[in-house]
């Protein structure tokens, strides 16, 4: 541990979308001394997951097994897996770091991630389950001309997945460098290889179980930390907060909102990106196809919401625990009084403070496992977009040769794995938080409007869905380029053209307005077919009649 440690944000910002708003300094993680306890713990996890993959491989024969675990995951299991997708290393390290640095602001950030779930439950989950089979494009393109809508949906999926993947890979490299003392390159390749093994051999079954195990480990670890912290203050939050206010440099202001919400428009725009982006993330949407019925789909969101809500409350306590136990302990700081490894390591240092070296190793291994599980899910959803939407439906017109679809998805998995490793390597210094906020903004502005309108609006047409979707996608990317994080920070212009932290408020309006405008002005023959197909789609989406056959294997 050299004294040159700079503020690391990358690691946790990994997905710490909120960091895009909090705008912390970015820097590189400094390589740490090799942590053998953590490596052994992680090795145990890897061996366990490889056994699961071997078991899952026996059950992964058809395309349906590969994409959706044959529809045989229960609501409770799926809920844990969804929660696992959401409780990324970013949520854990990033939110606890935000609480450690600014107190209450970290809570505002966490809540943004949670509020999309009820909306998904009330309006989307059941309809998705009733209409779809493997990908969200199955739903979006249900009554439309397959080619244009599938091409859009596959683009939306791949762009979202790619930005998310880069963020996770870069985050993984930084985190591993910090926690395990491995080289960045080694770390990225290791993540790439393990992830490919899970997906290639175990498909969705292995990917889901890896995610479930990790979710349980993370929930258990975080519960232990929060419990230990509260136990030190007689289980009185008031005593904990009082001590935190006393020792924190910002004193009283950690108990109220600070600079996280800069202006109301940014706040609302960012809130919309998180809320509706969740309903447009392809790797989350595909989880609704792994359960056997709409009832199980609903149960899985309830479980997911419960676990995620519980987890964010724990993270808040962990952040305050870090203020009183880590922030006051010189052993965790460098000569300049900064936290070793940066603020994102607050939770990791707290693990050492409450549970010693062994627990520190455990939490480090969990953080790595988290990234691995999320990356595997992302790759699987990208591979399904290529093999199911582009290859099987568009190129082979829904009649692929037996086994060929599965082969294409495996080849795509390998290609995506290589691309992910390469991009992770190239973008080592990129601001990962910004990558993730971009992924959420695109999901909210392109995928979500098309999905929503095609399912709920009878007059939506092929042209409207395709053009509107692409308009939303382009606006989200364009406004992001014009915002401070790219226009000033990357292109070194003096002032940004787009003044807000998230484009979602504007790009979502463009997406929805585009779908509407290009549908109502569509007088083509195809438009008539599209609108005539709504009745049958509506009946199936509301009742599941006709869907049962799709999921019975």
């Amino acid at each position, binding site marked *: 541990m050299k004294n040159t440690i700079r503020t690391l944000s990358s690691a946790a910002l990994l997905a710490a979308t909120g960091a895009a708003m909090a705008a912390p300094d970015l820097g590189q993680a400094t390589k740490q001394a090799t942590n053998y306890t953590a490596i052994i713990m992680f090795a145990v996890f890897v061996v366990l997951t490889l056994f699961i993959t071997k078991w899952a491989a026996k059950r992964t024969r058809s395309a349906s097994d590969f994409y959706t675990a044959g529809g045989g995951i229960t609501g409770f299991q799926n809920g844990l897996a969804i929660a696992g997708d959401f409780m990324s290393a970013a949520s854990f390290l990033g939110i606890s770091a935000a609480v450690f640095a600014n107190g*209450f602001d970290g809570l505002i950030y966490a*809540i943004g991630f949670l509020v999309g779930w009820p909306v998904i439950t009330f309006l989307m989950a059941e309809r998705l389950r009733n209409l779809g089979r493997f990908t969200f494009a199955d739903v979006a393109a249900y009554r439309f001309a397959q080619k244009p809508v599938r091409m859009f949906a596959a683009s939306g999926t791949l762009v979202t997945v790619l930005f998310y993947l880069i963020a996770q890979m870069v985050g993984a490299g930084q985190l591993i460098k910090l926690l395990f003392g491995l080289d960045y390159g080694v770390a990225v390749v290791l993540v790439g290889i393990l992830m490919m093994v899970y997906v290639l051999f175990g498909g969705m079954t292995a990917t889901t179980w890896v995610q479930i195990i990790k979710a349980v480990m993370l929930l258990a670890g975080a519960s232990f930390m929060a419990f230990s912290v509260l136990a030190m203050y007689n289980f009185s939050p008031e005593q904990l907060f009082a001590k935190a206010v006393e020792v924190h440099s910002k004193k009283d202001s950690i108990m109220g909102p600070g600079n996280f*919400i800069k202006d109301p428009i940014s706040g609302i725009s960012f809130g919309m990106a998180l809320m509706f982006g969740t309903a447009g993330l392809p790797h989350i949407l595909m989880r609704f196809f792994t359960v056997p019925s709409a009832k199980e789909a609903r149960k899985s969101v309830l479980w997911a919401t419960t676990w995620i809500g519980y987890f964010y409350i724990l993270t808040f306590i962990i952040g305050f625990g870090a203020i009183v136990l880590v922030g006051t302990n010189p052993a965790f700081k460098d000569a300049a009084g900064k936290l070793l490894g940066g603020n994102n390591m607050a939770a990791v240092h707290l693990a050492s403070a409450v549970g010693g070296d062994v627990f520190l190793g455990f939490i480090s291994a969990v953080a790595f496992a988290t990234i691995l599980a999320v990356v595997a899910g992302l790759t699987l959803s990208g591979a399904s977009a290529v093999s199911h939407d582009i290859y099987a439906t568009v190129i082979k017109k829904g009649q692929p040769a037996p086994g060929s679809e599965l082969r294409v998805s495996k080849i795509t998995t390998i290609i995506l794995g290589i691309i992910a490793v390469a991009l992770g390597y190239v973008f080592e210094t990129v601001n990962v938080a910004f990558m993730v906020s971009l992924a959420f903004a695109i999901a909210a502005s392109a995928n979500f409007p098309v999905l929503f309108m095609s399912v709920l609006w009878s007059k939506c047409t092929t042209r409207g869905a395709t053009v509107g979707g692409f308009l939303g996608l382009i606006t989200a990317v364009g406004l992001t380029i014009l915002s401070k994080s790219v226009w000033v920070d990357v292109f070194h212009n003096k002032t940004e053209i787009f003044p807000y932290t998230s484009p979602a408020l504007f790009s979502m309006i463009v997406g929805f307005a585009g779908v509407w405008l290009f549908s109502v002005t569509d007088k083509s023959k195809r438009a008539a077919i599209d609108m005539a197909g709504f009745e049958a789609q509506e009946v199936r989406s509301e009742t599941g009649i006709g869907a049962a056959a799709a999921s019975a294997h």
Partner: protein
Amino acid sequence: MDQDVVQRVKNDPNYQKLVKTRSRYGWMLTWAVMIVYYGFTCLNAFDKEFMGSRIGAGVMSWGVPLGLFVILFTVVVTGIYVRRANSEFDALTDAIQRNAAAGQAAPASQTNAEPVKVRA
């Protein structure tokens, strides 16, 4: 799906009831979540002072319990919906599916038989 089945389902009173009740319920709860979340966001944006002010003699501010309330509200409101959907709405859906299947199996002259009714 067969156009006949579609029409039969659409004419089933259970179906009309399901669609109407569920969609109204879903949108009502969606608006509730929107109001709570964006209300919380607006308080944080417009009245930072209130959110940071102390409730009583201790350091506890108004913001912390309100934030926890938003989290609990999110979970509880999801639970409320799922509970009703998994009992009442699913019972209606089952009845609709039975009617659709019965109509399909029966000869044309009997397709107008009284649909199964569900108390919901």
